[in-house]
């Protein structure tokens, strides 16, 4: 008996270390693209998670310095592939402001409608993918069904399904028609009915709640030190949204709320995004009701010269604050274009946020950030 008990005590005299390194990615399914997280592990606990970036790096900022600024337009849709239209929006709005171009009211409405549709699509994708990360296969089938409805609507007017290049300086490249309006209204009605399905399938799902509640809590102080924005920030109870705080386009004309969470955990970030779909629907509904007639594209000189100097334009992308910071030396090629993308700053909290977590909680915390890797890598 005595010998057996002795054997149960840890063998302190033998050097033993449970630490090991685990590579999550770059082809791991829950990293959504080519992100690698180098995990220092102790058993099932994460000691130090360090994201390794750059697998999808294309040096977009260098490309911007090498061509006429209008020619960079398609690139803007190739960073955040899940919600490209806000990227279009920030870019054209920046040049419209510095070059003093008036955008017709109808064009601004179309921009808001399509951007919000794009935001909904992005949140659909996220809800499906997040649940898939955590082992729930079914929700993505429902969200993708809904997502397809919107993609069809957007495809009709933009000509593409994913990497949109729809906005132009002075407006948009194609007008929306009655068919678009009709289909969008039908989608709004359909989506409102679908929330019930989401709630039954996900929101009240005890496994989902247990996996996400209290996981990955981001405090206000942490958010500020890292520059966290978007639904990840709003989940922590901070109602910061560029559409409200720094209004652009015709957003001030619409009545909508900024949903916020209370605890700042993964579950709150889910609730925030779910509510944001409803708020986007409200914006679209109002915009369709008020949609003015008139031109959809202003007459813009073929060769536009940028004024010398720097300027900045921020928009609310689906993942948070997107800022284009332009430095111009005159002419029509940007001297420098810094693109501040939301996922980059959001992901940078990961080492501090997930230290000491179980590996499965890291998946729930990282999944709730809604990462788009080509946006981070640019």
């Amino acid at each position, binding site marked *: 008996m005595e010998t057996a008990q002795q054997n149960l005590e840890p063998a302190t005299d033998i050097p033993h270390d449970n630490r090991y390194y685990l590579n999550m990615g770059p082809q791991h399914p829950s990293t959504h693209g080519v992100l690698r997280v180098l995990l220092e592990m102790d058993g099932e606990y994460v000691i130090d998670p360090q994201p390794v970036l750059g697998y999808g790096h294309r040096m977009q900022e260098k490309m911007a310095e090498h061509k006429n600024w209008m020619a960079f337009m398609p690139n803007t849709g190739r960073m955040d592939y899940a919600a490209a239209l806000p990227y279009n929006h920030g870019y054209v709005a920046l040049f419209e402001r510095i070059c003093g171009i008036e955008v017709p009211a109808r064009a601004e409405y179309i921009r808001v409608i399509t951007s919000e549709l794009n935001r909904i699509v992005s949140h659909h994708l996220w809800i499906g993918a997040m649940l898939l990360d955590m082992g729930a296969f079914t929700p993505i089938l429902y969200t993708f069904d809904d997502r397809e409805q919107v993609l069809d609507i957007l495809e009709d007017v933009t000509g593409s399904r994913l990497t949109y290049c729809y906005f132009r300086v002075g407006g948009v490249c194609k007008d929306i028609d009655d068919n678009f309006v009709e289909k969008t209204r039908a989608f709004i009605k359909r989506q409102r009915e679908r929330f019930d399905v989401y709630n039954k399938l996900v929101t009240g799902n005890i496994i989902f709640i247990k996996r996400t509640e209290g996981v990955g809590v981001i405090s206000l102080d942490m958010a500020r030190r890292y520059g966290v924005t978007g639904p990840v920030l709003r989940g922590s109870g901070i109602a910061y949204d560029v559409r409200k*705080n720094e209004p652009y386009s015709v957003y001030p004309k619409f009545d909508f709320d900024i949903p916020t969470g209370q605890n700042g955990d993964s579950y709150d970030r889910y609730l925030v995004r779910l509510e944001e779909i409803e708020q986007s629907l409200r914006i679209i509904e109002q915009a369709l009701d008020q949609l003015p007639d008139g031109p959809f594209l202003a007459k813009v000189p073929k060769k536009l010269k940028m004024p010398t100097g720097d300027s900045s334009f921020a928009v609310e992308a689906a993942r948070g604050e997107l800022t284009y910071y332009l430095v111009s030396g005159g002419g029509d090629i940007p001297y420098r274009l810094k693109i501040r993308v939301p996922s980059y700053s959001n992901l940078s909290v990961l080492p501090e946020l997930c230290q000491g977590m179980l590996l499965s909680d890291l998946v729930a915390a990282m999944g709730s950030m809604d990462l788009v890797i080509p946006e981070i890598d640019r």
Partner: protein
Amino acid sequence: MHPATEKLVTALSEQSIVLNECDYAERGYHFEIDLDAGRLREFAQCMLEQEMYLVFVGGLHVDPAIEIIYQFASYDRLCRLVLRVVVDSNNAIPTISDIYQGANWHERETRDFYGVIFIDHPNLVPLILAEEDVDLKPLLKNSDNIKESAAVRWVTVEEQPETDEKADTD
């Protein structure tokens, strides 16, 4: 002006930091600041105390030296400011990654793209570029297309120079 913004302006003036007020409607931010590298950390500390968050850190290669651009903004009011700091003769500048941890990645990225050394950075290894591309510095301008620092500074519309076609050709 928002009371918190006034407080920020006062706090910076007390440290005798000169703020240039900008026309937000033209440029999308409210204040621009040029600062010596030696005062950068003190400035960042002040930003944190004034509850500003870090938007981004980026580089700008101009003649005579690389400038590092910092943008800060606020979660609760409309206030955005841009800070420019010129690197020293060794292409070095102090890190602020211990004050704003988010700067850690931005500084690593800036080192990738410009080769700027952030003094006392805890982990200044390539982030975006591959390790073998450590000396690539892709955003450095060459002698043909580099501009003077003053040539990329904001000038009001009335002061805009006449169109210079030569400068535009690639």
